[in-house]
């Protein structure tokens, strides 16, 4: 680390936060990123600027698929760079500060800082980190009690990118809100990454009239329309300019091929060999505990995380042939406190599956499932819910904290162990 006016203070803050993180993880109190990050910023408020000096930064933001796309981009970028990243999903200021604290003090010039950023924080974190590349995925309704409505976010991004001429953008041209955010940027690679959930994109962000969608195009009468993509998907291939790159993904679902296409756009901006990057991305089979299949009480459980209607549309595709489905819904701050969005999910698609409603908001889910004509049972505790399943192959689909609850339980560092302390840490981490 460089000698600076306040380098002592930063060093001290980094030591403390790393120790706290180590302790938290040993005690099974979470990923150990947010609270240590908060301590770090408390002692050294300037830590993000200081610790990122000399680092080439790439940011990934959007409502859905931030963590997965960041993990895929990380795999690809490692073809050429050493990458410091926040793939645990701690994507606000604290999490990013802590990722920087973990950065080795002896690093070569070929280092990239790759961070997923909460959509509300993109402009402010961008200002602190001066990224070279920003990847924008999608914008749709999510946690409306905390995050602004999607249109407001889109306008904030647009202003930020219009005023930052040194940023190269990689953006999804199938989402009108993303195009509105990115179109004033000086350099954009458009990726046809798809948009299954169109409800938040129907009214034109430019003029308010209705956008007309066709199979792979959209336009508005005001002239606002889909830009031509430089990167697009053809089955399991990604087409970039005149090249075709195969993606034989381990991760399930079509949306993960699209996520990889965006990640390849990031690699293109960073000058990485794309064939090499694609092979590395294909091998990713787990992202922060998501997608993997694990054994719980004799069941083979596929762990899926989704937190809003747009995400759910992709998840039905991943549940596939699993005959039992446990759905876990919580409503803590990280989930959004209002699960009304459950009514925007076509749960009718679970017909024929054995369904267990779980989580702290299992009752909201239960009413929703009744009206979808889906018979189900209730078990608030997700582990108990998995135990109720009569089939061996189970998909567990949880929103953020419900997923993390089950993950902790199965990783063995729950639940009899210090639940009150965990609650306390949780409160300070929010």
């Amino acid at each position, binding site marked *: 680390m460089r000698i600076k006016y306040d380098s002592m203070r930063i060093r001290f803050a980094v030591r403390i936060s790393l120790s706290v993180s180590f302790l938290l993880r040993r005690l099974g109190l979470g990923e150990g990123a947010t609270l240590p990050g908060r301590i770090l910023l408390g002692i050294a408020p300037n830590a993000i600027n200081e610790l990122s000096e000399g680092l080439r930064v790439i940011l990934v933001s959007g409502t859905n698929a931030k963590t997965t796309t960041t993990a895929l981009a990380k795999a690809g970028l490692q073809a050429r760079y050493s990458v410091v990243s926040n793939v645990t999903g701690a994507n606000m200021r604290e999490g990013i500060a802590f990722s920087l604290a973990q950065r080795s003090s002896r690093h070569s010039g070929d280092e990239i800082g790759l961070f997923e950023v909460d959509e509300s924080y993109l402009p402010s974190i961008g200002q602190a980190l001066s990224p070279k590349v920003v990847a924008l995925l999608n914008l749709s309704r999510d946690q*409306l009690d905390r995050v602004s409505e999607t249109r407001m976010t889109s306008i904030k991004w647009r202003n930020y990118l219009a005023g930052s001429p040194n940023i190269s953008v990689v953006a999804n041209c199938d989402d009108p809100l993303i195009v509105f955010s990115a179109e004033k940027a000086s350099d954009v690679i458009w990726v046809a990454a798809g948009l299954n959930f169109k409800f938040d994109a129907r009214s034109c962000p430019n003029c308010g009239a209705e956008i007309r969608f066709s199979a792979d195009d959209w336009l508005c009468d005001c002239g606002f329309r889909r830009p031509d993509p430089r990167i697009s998907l053809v089955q399991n291939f990604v087409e970039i300019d005149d090249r075709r790159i195969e993606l034989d993904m381990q991760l399930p679902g079509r949306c993960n091929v699209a996520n990889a296409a965006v990640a390849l756009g990031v690699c293109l901006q960073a000058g990485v060999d794309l064939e090499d990057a694609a092979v590395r991305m294909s091998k990713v089979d787990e992202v922060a505990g998501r997608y993997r299949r694990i054994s719980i009480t004799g069941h083979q459980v596929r762990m899926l995380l989704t937190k809003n209607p747009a995400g759910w549309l992709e998840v039905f595709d991943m549940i596939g042939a699993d005959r039992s489905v446990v759905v876990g819904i919580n409503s803590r701050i990280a989930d959004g406190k*209002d699960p009304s969005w459950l009514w925007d999910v076509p749960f009718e698609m679970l017909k024929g599956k054995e369904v267990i409603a779980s989580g702290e908001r299992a009752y909201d889910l239960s009413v929703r499932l009744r009206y979808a004509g889906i018979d189900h049972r209730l078990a608030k505790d997700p582990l108990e819910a998995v135990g109720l399943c009569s089939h061996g192959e189970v998909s567990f689909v949880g929103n953020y904290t419900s997923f993390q609850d089950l993950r902790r339980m199965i990783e063995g560092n729950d639940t009899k162990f210090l639940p009150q302390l965990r609650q306390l840490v949780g409160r300070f981490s929010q």
Partner: protein
Amino acid sequence: MSEGCRVISVFPELLGTYGDSGNTVILAKRLELRGFKVDFVEINPGVHIPSDGDFYLIGGGEDGPQARASDLLAIESPLSRAIDRGAAIFAVCAGFQILGNSFPASNGRKLSGLGLFRVETHRHLGPRSVGELLVSPLQELHLPILSGYENHQSVTEVLANGSPLGTVLVGKGNNFGSDPKVDGAIEGKAIGTYMHGPAFARNPKLCDLVISSVVGPIPEIEDIELTRSHQLLYQDRLNAAQAVKRRT
């Protein structure tokens, strides 16, 4: 044989941000469970809005789409004509606001509403009203306490000759004037409120009130599991709202 009912979901693509489409699903199903044949119509921009519906449901959404929906509903005023024909309207949040006399655009400019409710919605510079909402409804409605989740910026003034839906027990509701605050408005068979959740998922009796305002007295629903699911959710949300009250 059974009677038919027309249920009209008004602009779910513009005003469907907060899950209020659930109200439509619930209303349609509860009609069917009473033996009515439901003709369900979803109206989106560009489509003629029929005035021969029995039930019109409008939800919450963002400022731009809200102004757009209001403009479209002003053309040939189909909702006023439907009310004159005896239809019921249930409107939530942004949908409620556009049915009043006026509401603010995102730039603060005052826009004319449809004037079905004698209310005016004003721009509010204070904190957004977000959280559990508990409302004691007007006594003559014979309803239990109502539960919802509110999430809005503006405040709504009920004018001297208008009537609110009820008195706020927890939360902000219309958030206009001094305490006790009121929520929503009621005008004949038209009900407006700030309750998301969706409102009918948490308050099936409110849904049944809207139904019986058009079709007359209806029997209790025989689906025990459905009723039980509603009861569990209702009790859970009452407890949550009480916890909010204790904290504040």
